[in-house]
């Protein structure tokens, strides 16, 4: 199958609040191929989070067509979209979202609860993912004892442990200092060289400059290339 990983054609998302309609995303066309390292930039309120939520199947677009691995997800049921999230999409958030009372390993295993990874394999796969983000030495730590950068690396391990088709990162360095940001960006570079598809939403020029491609969002419009 020669379908691109992700193809948006004229995708829009309109929020309705009583009489008022807000077009958070208008007529977006975007293609992401396997192995791409794409960043989405734009000021806050430009609609980049909306675009990310639509791509991540966390939100439903209101117009246009969205194909994920060739499947039109517009018509998919909630359950099927949830299944796609569980198996094909990895998430990294600005605020890490690690469970405070679980160890690093347990946090990584959490992502394998809802898909087809067999219980016996989980531990090994978690350790492998932690190895890839160079966090295996902290496997038994609780998140509170980790630095911000370390926490984000655990979150990335959690996302890649399920072997997703794409890693979607929402402001992954938004809560990090510059040194930690550097290490995360270096990690992204390594993951990308391993063949992982990366989509990073950011407002940080440093972060977007590491990507192969950058698209900009402005007032709900998507344009190829970094905005001036």
């Amino acid at each position, binding site marked *: 199958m020669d379908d691109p990983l992700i193809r948006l054609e004229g995708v829009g998302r309109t929020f309705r609040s009583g009489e008022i309609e807000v077009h958070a995303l208008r007529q977006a066309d975007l293609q992401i191929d396997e192995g791409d390292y794409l960043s989405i930039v734009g000021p806050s309120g430009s609609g980049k989070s909306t675009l990310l939520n639509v791509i991540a199947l*966390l939100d439903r677009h209101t117009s246009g067509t969205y194909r994920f691995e060739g499947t039109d997800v517009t018509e998919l049921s909630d*359950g099927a979209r949830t299944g796609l*999230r569980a198996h*094909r999409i990895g998430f990294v958030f600005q605020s890490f979202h690690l469970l405070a009372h679980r160890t690093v390993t347990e946090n990584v295993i959490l992502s394998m*609860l809802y*898909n087809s990874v067999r*219980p016996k394999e989980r531990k090994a796969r978690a350790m492998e993912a932690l190895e890839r983000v160079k966090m295996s030495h902290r496997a038994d730590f609780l998140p509170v004892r980790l630095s911000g950068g370390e926490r984000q690396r655990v979150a990335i391990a959690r996302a890649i442990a399920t072997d997703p088709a794409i890693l979607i990162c929402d402001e992954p360095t938004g809560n990090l200092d510059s040194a930690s940001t550097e290490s995360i960006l270096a990690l992204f570079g390594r993951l990308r060289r391993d063949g992982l598809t990366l989509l990073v939403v950011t407002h940080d020029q440093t972060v977007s400059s590491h990507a192969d491609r950058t698209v900009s969002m402005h007032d709900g419009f998507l344009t190829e290339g970094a905005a001036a």
Partner: protein
Amino acid sequence: MTDRMRARLRPRDLLAESLAGLFTRPGRSLLTALGAVLGIASLVATLGIAETAGNQIITAFDELAATSVVVTTDQGFFGNAPQATLPWDSEERLTRLNGVTAAGTMGSVPIGGLLTRSVPIKDPLGLTEFQIPMIAASPGLYPAARGSLATGRWYDRGHSDRADRVAVLGTGAAQRLNITRVDQQPVVFVGDHSFVVLGILDEVERQPELLNALIVPEGTARDLYDYRSPDTIQIDTEVGAASLISDQAPIAVAPDDPSTVRVQAPSEPDDVRAGVEQDVNAMFLILGGVSLLVGAIGIANVTLVSVLERVGEIGLRRALGASRRHIAYQFLLESTGVGLFGGAIGASTGVLVVVGVSALRTWTPVLDPRIPLAAPLLGALTGLLAGLYPAIRASLMEPVDSLRGAA
């Protein structure tokens, strides 16, 4: 889209996640369970105490007690009331009443400390004389007291009328006097009087003091000693006639002043049991129900707070592929777990209360074994119902909002 791609959650994982949720805040989980503990404990205790008390009444209501009426002379509260006497012909008067199967009079004979011996010789080496109480009894006492003889026979009216020197020995008295058979007509001596032993009383179901006594006919006691009147009448009635007979007996034996005699009759079992069950059941069942309701509201409240606190976790799980149903199940299972735990502790507490109350009142604790087994399930059901609303709230949260909502 293959079926393999469906979001799933193994039951074991669901259970583990719910338990982890509970053990993350053990203190809070314990306090939450307290409501269910109190509710279930009071329900179990109520049912247990009602059942125990009911059983207590059933035990008291056995055929033996229910058919026994005892008439005695009223001694007054301090034992100084004017001495009433029971007529000699009480036995005939009472057996004429409908519902009486047997009646017999008896009374202690004042023998003034005379010793009883079985051989007319004094043995300086052995103890041959004993202080054995003498009881005068009418022939009807034997069936009325439900006695049975080890050997020999009970005397009859003729012995009494002729004031024959005969006696029946209680089994205890017979042992002390070393008399085991009566076929050779053994004789016992009380002071200077001799009595031919007719029989040995083996057992009585009523008036157990007979077993250690020398029992003589009333006519004999009247003739030899200063025996003025019987002091006790034992009546054996038909089943169900006891309460009627206890009303009629005083009039039959003391028609001039029935208040001079006292009647001991079994209490009406139905009244007592109904009274106990009404008192115990109604009040405490309501109390238990209210506690359980309060407990349920407590569980609902805490689960809701927990849902609102864990918005971020809910969003994360949804992003990782948990369906709405998975989220709902997780919170439902948590609240059900709290209810189950509370129910189990409550059932144990309730059982302890039943045992404690029974011990204080020297009752036999009785509890339907299904109650302590069903109680934790009732607790779990309470938790399940209490968790419904919070779980639905959690499952309806949008992952996008939830992920922004909290760190």
